[in-house]
């Protein structure tokens, strides 16, 4: 019942908006995911900054402790006789006692006003540990290390809100740390500073600054460098006498203290890892176990002086999902489904309605066809007996003959009407059969005119016929008759005001033409093609007093085309002029095989 074209139409109606909705939804979801990712990262970065601020606070406490307690005063200055190193025995003992007591202090050192290392001593009184310290820090005292503006931890950095650096500050290279690279071979202190890996030999930095030079601008600061196990830290302070006192920090003790201050738990589902410069985990917490090689979702360097360390945040897939699979995507999906469902419901409703209308229409047509068929037999009988009576009537009985002729004319009209309906319904069911024989169009036209003579005469239409055609054409005479009858019937119905009907037949080179012209109101240009459509009427107003089914011209053109010709409206000075064109065949006989 449905054409494939209609199915495609329905599919388009449903799928086009659906596709559009899906595309929009995806786009919104993608945008949302991007912002979500951003927010999530910002959240993690915030957490990492909190962690960093704990570390910064611990470092700050260490600095305070070192400045206030460990390096608070120069030991017994000018107290006792000095030995050759410029330090009194009591002073040396004081420094050693400090080192033995302070967990964070691995070694302690003292520089004189010229920047020379006063302590630890180099002579026989030095312990093995003290000599090892001199060896691993030799480059710093020789001045080979390039030191930049070592930050004054309290004065400058603290004033800037240490521990809560803005992102830009964290990313920028942090000045203030010695650039002594990791020595290629342990124990070869001469290699320090001289062999900067990655720097060509001639690009060797200028002979470095000394701590003393730094001490002219700041009261205290950090120095970092790498040696053997990794990061080493020095903290120094300028004393009142112009000497510099400092300590080498015990790295593991500092780390242990930081670890002790960091939370042991408290993050859901994720994992935070504190790593050293080479990416090894120093400490971690959180239940999630990242896979090897997994990239952290957020990462931030620790603030100075541990800036080579990083804090990384890993996130479990479940946590990521929990954040991203929020209501939005769910809403989008639900919305999309709702749109799809309503569209399909609407399409289904339209389809059912359409199908019902089609079925109703088909039933009505079938009903009319059946009724017409039933009417045909009694009508034929009426016409037959009326004509018989007409033949048997006496000549003088004029009144009866006139009334009888009306009966005959009306029954003929009714027959044509029924023929039209049946032709139309057969044509629609592709059941129309034409039986072509060689016919003379003139004869057909004359027979039609004879049929219509009483009606035309009754309306005062002056009829003329110019029979110019002579060649026979291959056609079904009933069909041609029906065409011409429809044309003449139209003149009688719609162009009676012109009181003129002229039919011309003529042969040109390949076809025979039947031209029907009237002088009625004519057909306005907007209607000129539409009048050939079924059920099309120029005026629907019953009040015009004009009847008609509206299928006459449609049937006429269809029959003409089935006969191999055409029916067209040709321009005319006045009224309407239709031309029926029927081709002539030179060789005849192929067709016309009758059943």
């Amino acid at each position: 019942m449905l054409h494939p074209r209609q199915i495609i139409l329905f599919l388009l109606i449903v799928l086009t908006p659906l596709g559009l909705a899906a595309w929009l939804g995806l786009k919104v979801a993608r945008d949302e995911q991007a912002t979500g990712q951003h927010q999530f990262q910002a959240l993690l970065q915030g957490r990492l900054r909190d962690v960093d601020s704990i570390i910064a606070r611990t470092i700050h406490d260490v600095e305070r402790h070192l400045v206030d307690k460990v390096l608070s005063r120069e030991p017994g200055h000018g107290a006792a006789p000095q030995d050759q190193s410029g330090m009194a025995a009591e002073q040396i003992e004081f420094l050693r006692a400090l080192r033995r007591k302070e967990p964070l202090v691995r070694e302690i050192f003292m520089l004189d006003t010229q920047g020379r290392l006063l302590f630890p001593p180099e002579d026989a009184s030095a312990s093995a540990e003290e000599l090892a310290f001199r060896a691993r820090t030799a480059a710093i005292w020789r001045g080979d290390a390039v030191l930049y503006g070592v930050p004054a931890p309290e004065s400058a950095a603290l004033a800037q809100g240490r521990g809560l650096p803005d992102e830009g500050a964290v990313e920028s290279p942090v000045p203030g740390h010695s650039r002594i690279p990791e020595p290629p071979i342990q124990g070869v202190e001469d290699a320090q500073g001289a062999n900067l890996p990655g720097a060509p030999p001639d690009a060797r930095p200028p002979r470095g600054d000394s701590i003393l030079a730094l001490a002219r601008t700041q009261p205290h600061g950090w120095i970092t460098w790498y040696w053997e196990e990794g990061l080493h830290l020095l903290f120094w302070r300028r004393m009142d006498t112009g000497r510099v006192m400092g300590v080498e920090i015990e790295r593991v003790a500092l780390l242990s203290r930081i670890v002790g201050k960091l939370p042991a738990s408290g993050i859901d589902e994720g994992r935070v890892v504190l790593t050293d410069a080479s990416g090894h985990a120093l400490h971690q917490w959180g239940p999630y176990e990242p896979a090897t090689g997994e990239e952290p979702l957020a990462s931030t360097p620790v603030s100075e002086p541990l800036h080579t360390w990083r804090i990384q945040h890993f996130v479990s897939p479940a946590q990521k999902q929990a954040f991203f699979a929020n209501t939005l995507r769910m809403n989008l999906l639900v919305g999309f489904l709702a749109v799809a469902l309503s569209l399909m419901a609407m399409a289904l409703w339209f389809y059912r309605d359409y199908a019902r209308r089609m079925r109703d229409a088909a039933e009505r047509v079938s009903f009319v066809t059946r009724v017409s068929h039933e009417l045909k037999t009694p009508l034929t009988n009426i016409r037959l007996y009326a004509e018989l009576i007409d033949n048997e009537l006496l000549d003088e009985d004029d009144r009866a003959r006139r009334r009888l002729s009306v009966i005959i004319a009306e029954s003929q009209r009714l027959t044509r009407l029924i023929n039209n309906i049946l032709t139309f319904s057969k044509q629609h069911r592709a059941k129309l059969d034409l039986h072509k024989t060689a016919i003379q169009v003139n004869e057909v036209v004359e027979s039609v005119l004879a049929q219509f003579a009483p009606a035309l005469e009754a309306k005062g239409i002056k009829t003329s016929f110019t029979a110019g055609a002579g060649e026979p054409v291959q056609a079904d005479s009933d069909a041609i008759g029906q065409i011409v009858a429809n044309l003449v019937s139209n003149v009688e119905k719609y162009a009676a005001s012109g009181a003129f009907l002229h039919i011309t037949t003529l042969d040109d080179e390949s076809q025979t033409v039947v031209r029907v012209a009237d002088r009625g109101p004519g057909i306005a240009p907007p209607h000129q093609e539409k009048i050939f459509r079924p059920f099309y009427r120029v005026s629907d107003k019953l009040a015009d007093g004009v009847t008609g089914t509206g299928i006459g011209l449609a049937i006429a053109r269809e029959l003409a085309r089935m006969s191999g010709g055409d029916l067209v409206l040709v321009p005319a000075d006045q009224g309407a002029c239709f031309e029926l064109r029927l081709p002539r065949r030179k060789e005849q006989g192929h067709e016309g095989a009758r059943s």
Partner: protein
Amino acid sequence: MNMSQHRAKRASIATSLLALCVSSFVTPAMAGGPADVATKDPEIIVDIEAGEPIMLAGKNQKTYVKISLTGFDLPKKAKRPAVNLALVLDRSSSMSGDPFEKAKQAAIMVLDRLGPDDIISIITYDSTAEVLVPATRVTNRDALRELITSLHPRGSTALFSGVSYGIEEVSKFLESQRVNRVILLSDGQANVGPSSPNELGRLGEAAGKQGIAITTIGLGLGYNEDLMTQLAMRSDGNHGFAENADQLATIFNYELGDVLSVVAQDVTIEIEFDEGVRPVRGLNRDIEIHGRKAMFSLNQLYSKQEKYVLIEVDVPATLAGKKRDLARVAVGYDHMLTGKHHKLGDALQVSFSGSAQDVARNENRGVMVAAIEATAAERNRQAIALRDQGKIDQAEKVLRDNARELERQGKKYRSDRLQKYSEANEVDAENVRGDNWNRQRKAMRKSQYQIQMNQAY
């Protein structure tokens, strides 16, 4: 070892030094009678002895000086010092099953032996560390017991973080009048955070400076004994080796016995040698040497336990008949019963004789045996180093030679101790090859530790 002999040898200088120092520390109320204080409170015993009290004259020579400290007997009615303890338990998945159950039982046993004045914290670690019980007084024993019982093993090993949390928890109530200690139980390697023996040793040293001793107990055959001994040694804690979980209860019992019998803390020992006499090295312990001064410190002394250091000393040629004040020792410590800082001293005098017989006859057997044992332990350590380098044959030879030498000296000094250690070295040599080496290495480290640190168990 003959205690009365030691006491008799103490130089009179000790008493005067003590009296002087104590008087400067007593409260005003007691200031009237420093002598009373000295007799009333038991003191730790400080001894300084030479291997050869009579040395051969006219020759540069090497000798051993032994400085020993022995904790006094805790008076019966005296209140024992309060304990501030952190238990750090490995709960990595390798502990699953019996080991972890036994570890929990041991932890509960520790809990049961502590009193309401004591402080305990419990830290567990796998791939991350967690403070299960923050430092708290042992008042609600049942709740703590329940927490321990509910533990389950999981994950890998963040030993450094675990110990760091242990130190942090103990630091919260760090007091010189408490016994501050971390007990670490591990059956595995450290793989998160610093994990080299050297780094953990440095951590131990930092903890020791704070007065926190770390006792390490290795369980099974998977732990890193070098790391565990370094951590314990540098913080002056104990080290235990429990090959199977059944031994945990015994070890924890010994450990608790030590912890609950601390009589002195923050013990510093300074030795000054005579002009021309040069200390070379500490034979059993690492000591700090500056010229002719040497020093070392102990985190604590346990009741009735002797801790000592043996120092190798170069003595210049001296004429026969002469005497030399070889060394003076000054000891300072926190007395756990009085809560005060006490100072003690002792001096060592040696005489010189031309007769080798005289020298041999007067040898101090106790010092000689200790020196021989310490030297043998050092060779035992070398054997491990050789074996680690893959020099199996050399390692075996060192151990066999060691055993033979120990046997010879054992006979000479009629010492069961040396005989036993000779046999132990023989067993070590047997196991240098083959599957048993891993176990043997742990046992060797354990006995080295015991000899070096004079550990009671």
